[in-house]
């Protein structure tokens, strides 16, 4: 082990500690092997695989309808968007014409999922830097979305509401009213988020100027979502490759150029406003029509390779299917945003303090099942 002498009495020595897998700041079972010198981080080595469930392998034995429910268990905070990604891939391969009603409902529910995910992230972010109140307030607003989801989809977290060809059942009669209530409620609460945490000097001092990621690094590490957008890399899949009903709404892509922890925080706060505006644009005129197109009981994709990407709350999720014409895929690969975003943690955390690492990790918004799959 390398030893440097500071003065004759004190020796400074590098040593290793484990952060996780049971550390509350890692938000799940992620083990970080830290090489530190005093409080300064020299190296961060993520150790993965604690909840690897071989979802991609299980997909090779499942039918295409059954794959959808497995994606709930990847990034569980944006489960509806994951479901949508698989369904869009299958529909693209089968060249199914999806009713307008389905597209609009999928987009509304997807954006609600994004708000709910960011609400949870905001609460946990505050808690990671020492503000416990945010946790309760974030969960309070998330609860309204959970109720909407439970009433329409039947579950609060693992919805499995999308099926190849549409939606499992039509929206609940109360859906529109509840969503409108939520928009009105959340518009009064979002400014409180700012008063409580964003404008707090102590919070700003802890987050500004740490964990800086440049635009070039964001691109070369394959970062996506709010992490990349905070570095000035415009990469919103909703903007560049619109899917479902996103081509008919207007929204601004949240962009920052600083690339530090505070910029990533601000991007997510702004994304909540944008998602609210998307939901607001669509909720009043959900087109009438079928909620589901009839598909064969056994879906067989044509021979070939199919790729579809969507923007989850964490970034770009890609679904890549190789089909040999049978009822299950030959190979299915999920390009998950969390894995790429974790890869740059070592790059931005080196040189900082352990406390900064916690704040940096909070804004990467890691969901470990999404990384391990």
């Amino acid at each position, binding site marked *: 082990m390398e030893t440097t002498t500071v003065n004759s009495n004190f020796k400074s020595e590098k040593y290793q500690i484990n952060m996780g897998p049971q550390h509350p700041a890692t938000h799940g079972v992620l083990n970080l092997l830290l090489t530190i010198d005093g409080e300064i981080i020299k190296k961060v080595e993520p150790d993965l695989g604690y909840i690897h469930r071989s979802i991609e392998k299980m997909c090779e034995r*499942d039918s295409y*309808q*059954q794959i*959808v*429910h*497995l994606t709930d268990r990847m990034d569980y905070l944006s489960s509806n968007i994951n479901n949508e990604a698989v369904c869009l891939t299958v529909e693209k391969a089968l060249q199914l014409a999806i009713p307008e009603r389905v597209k609009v409902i999928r987009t509304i529910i997807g954006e609600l999922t994004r708000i709910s995910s960011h609400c949870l992230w905001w609460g946990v972010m505050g808690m990671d830097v020492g503000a416990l*109140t945010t946790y309760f307030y974030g969960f*309070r607003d998330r*609860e309204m979305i959970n*109720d909407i989801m*439970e*009433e*329409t*989809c*039947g*579950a609060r977290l*693992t919805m*499995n509401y999308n*099926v190849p060809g549409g939606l*499992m*059942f039509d929206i*609940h009669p109360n859906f529109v009213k509840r969503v409108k209530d939520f928009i009105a409620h959340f518009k009064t609460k979002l400014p*409180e988020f700012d*008063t*409580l*945490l964003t*404008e*707090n*000097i*102590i919070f700003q*001092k802890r987050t500004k100027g740490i964990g800086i990621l440049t635009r070039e690094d964001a691109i070369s590490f394959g970062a996506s979502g709010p992490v990349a957008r905070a570095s000035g890399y415009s990469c919103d899949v909703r903007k560049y490759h619109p899917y479902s009903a996103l081509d008919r709404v207007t929204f601004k892509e949240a962009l920052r150029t600083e690339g530090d922890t505070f910029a990533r925080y601000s991007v997510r706060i702004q994304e909540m406003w944008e998602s609210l505006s998307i939901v607001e644009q669509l909720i009043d005129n959900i087109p009438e029509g079928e909620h589901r197109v009839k598909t064969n*009981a056994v879906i067989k994709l044509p021979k070939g390779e199919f790729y579809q990407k969507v923007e989850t709350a964490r970034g770009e999720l890609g679904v890549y299917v190789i089909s040999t014409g049978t009822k299950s895929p030959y190979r299915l690969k999920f390009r998950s945003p969390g894995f790429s975003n974790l890869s740059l943690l070592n790059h931005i955390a080196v040189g900082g303090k352990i406390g900064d690492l916690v704040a940096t990790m909070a804004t990467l918004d890691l969901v470990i099942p999404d990384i391990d799959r």
Partner: protein
Amino acid sequence: MSYFSDIYNGIKTLLTGMRVTGKYFLTSRKGAITQQYPDNRETLKMFDRFRGEVIMPHDEENQHRCTGCQKCEIACPNGTIEIIWDRGIDEETGKKKKKIDQFVYHLSMCTMCGLCIDVCPTDAIEWGQNFENSVYDRAALTRVLNEPGSKLMPGVED
């Protein structure tokens, strides 16, 4: 000097934040989302579509709607449903007809994806609202959904 102005600004923004928390402190019960769960069992009502467990409704004459087509068994990703079936003589036509002996449901393996209920052609199974599933022995989570002595409702065809 920035040391003292930092302290001043820190306290000022803390107090600004505490204005928000103070407001909720004074009006705490209004808009509270916490449920007093074990105490509110009598009044707790889940949403209609809530997915608690798979049940098979029976009518007053102990008849169900399951024809034993096994579509749910095929649709299930985890092998949760197991249908033990037999062939019996149909009283009306006199022909041999498939009928279920036991509809075995392993709740401990169920992921509540809803594919079985979605695929059922005769609406024989549906979602139940019960979610309290803690038991001392996991064998208690394996259930036979059709009641003993029950038979197929007349007129139900798949």
